[in-house]
């Protein structure tokens, strides 16, 4: 059974419809990359699937049940969001933040048990951020925040991860690092949808890509067959070149000579 099925989805804001006729489905263990220019509706799609924005038309089905039939709490036990950052002024420590990921499974006060605590610490150790456990979150770098938010999402024990630009603000090494960790999670059966801006990341890590332009789907499928220079030129309105790096790796980049 598919984890997430989106059919003929129209969504957006009251006076500004964003998404038109978006249809796709995510199977267990699949990592999806959502590509497209700024304003194409990538974040709107994630937020609508998370139930943070309401649909205007179409259907979203999560684990065989319409998205609006899930209560917020039930949804949070199965679907997790990794936003770009968080409000640092809150002043919680790294561990407190990760433990908040357990709260959909806990009572009114969100009191963690010993097992919840061990789970959170193990996740942090796994992501090699255990040193952030007692650090106040206001004093963290963008990359450290991103990893904490990933740990928080994993603490929810979700079936699907929704990631909003997981590589933004990260250096090259940490970009690859985060993507490898997400990939490791999906290889363990978790599904994930990530908004990404780097075509080469999608090429290297994604199982499926969804290309959005002006709120509509331009293409959808496996990265190898979908990501071609022609499609990418239409997606970004830019002349694009590709090169073979050997070992089956293909690169895309704007044709700078023509753009300048």
């Amino acid at each position, binding site marked *: 059974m598919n984890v997430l099925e989106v059919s003929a989805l129209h969504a957006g804001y009251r006076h500004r419809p964003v998404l038109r006729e978006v249809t796709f489905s995510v199977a267990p263990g699949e990592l999806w990359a959502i590509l497209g220019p700024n304003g194409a509706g990538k974040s709107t799609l994630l937020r609508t699937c998370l139930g943070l924005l309401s649909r205007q038309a179409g259907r979203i089905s999560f684990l065989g049940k319409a998205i609006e039939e899930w209560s917020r709490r039930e949804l949070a036990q199965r679907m997790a969001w990794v936003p770009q950052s968080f409000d640092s002024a809150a002043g919680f420590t790294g561990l407190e933040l990760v433990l908040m990921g357990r709260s959909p499974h806990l009572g009114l006060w969100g009191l963690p048990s010993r097992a919840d605590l061990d789970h959170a610490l193990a996740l942090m150790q796994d992501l090699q951020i255990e040193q952030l456990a*007692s650090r106040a979150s206001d004093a963290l770098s963008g990359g450290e925040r991103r990893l904490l938010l990933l740990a928080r999402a994993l603490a929810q024990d979700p079936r699907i991860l929704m990631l909003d630009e997981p590589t933004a603000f990260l250096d090259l090494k940490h970009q690859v690092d985060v993507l490898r960790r997400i990939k490791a999670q999906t290889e363990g059966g978790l599904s994930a949808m990530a908004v990404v801006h780097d075509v080469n990341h999608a090429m290297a890590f994604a199982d499926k890509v969804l290309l959005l332009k002006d709120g509509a789907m331009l293409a959808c499928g496996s990265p190898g067959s979908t990501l071609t220079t022609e499609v990418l030129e239409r997606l970004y309105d830019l002349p694009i070149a590709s090169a073979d790096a050997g070992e089956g790796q293909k690169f895309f980049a704007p044709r700078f000579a023509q753009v300048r």
Partner: protein
Amino acid sequence: MMRMEHSSIEVPLRFTIRRAAALILGLAAVVVIAFAASARFGEQPISLSIALADPTSTDAAIFWSLRLPRAVLAIIIGAALAASGSALQGLMRNPLADPFVLGVSGGAALGATLAIAAGLGSAAQLAPEPLRAALARLSAPALFAFAGSIGATALVFAGGRVQGQSSPYALLLTGVIFNAFASAAITAVKALVNPEKLGEILYWLAGTLGYENAWTLALAALLQALAIGTMWMNAGKLNLLMLGDDDAASLGVSVGPTRLVLLLAASLSVAGAVALSGLIGFVGLIVPHVLRLWLGPDQRLLLPCSAFGGAAFLALSDLATRMLFSVFHTELPVGVVTALVGGPFFLLVLHRRRVGSLSPSWL
């Protein structure tokens, strides 16, 4: 998933039941001491043994009808202002939020000012015959202040809704604008009334603790227990709301209803407080703020600790106003003392605070 033994690692958790219980009991002890001191001492020295032994003595009269009710009032008002200040700072995601931020101060002040200007003494003057006895013990300014703050909050809620959602910033802005409007209206009233009433209005606006009867105190205590209890019950969700609406929603919080419950509880608590005390500033801003620097932002801990801290702070500030009677030969409004003591203390704490450091490990 790798499983590890963590018993050897120091787990840096600031909220545990044991630590919360220890801190709350400790602060409760401070409140008891502040309450005892506030009820025991004042401008007129009394003997407790005479007061308790002889109910007809002057000492007994001072203790039972002046000291004790006023100390009880200080505890109730202090707890209400600081607990709702803590909740509102979290809800607004703004450390500068205070209990009056949602238009409560403007509404309450306008209501009380109008009642005083109209020369209304007791709420009973306005009530129809069957209700007169019940309201006889409530002053008209108190009733008008309560109604004014509830009305103002309702207006700010309605005005602060953006696209059907009550965003913290729209609420904050609407509250600030309403308070400015109310303050202009009050200035107009002040310009029109006679000097005697003007003095009464100014005294009310500065924030004072008076002598309420047992019936009023019991009602106020019940209201605050309900309001603070509701806020504390929802403190875990409030923690998640402090991260942002979308974060809270993705972690399972029904954002709209939860925020509404918290805002209503906080507003009711503040309205109940200002009705009896006028506008006592700084307690609701400083107590939660200083405690947050010490205890961290977790509202499950911060909210009850703020309630106790505010109760102790206001009881001691009120004691100071009465002890200072011999210096000034008049009683300063307690709001003046909280601001004069609280302001510099707050700056000192803020100055000494090192960014990113946690509370000492012994607590």
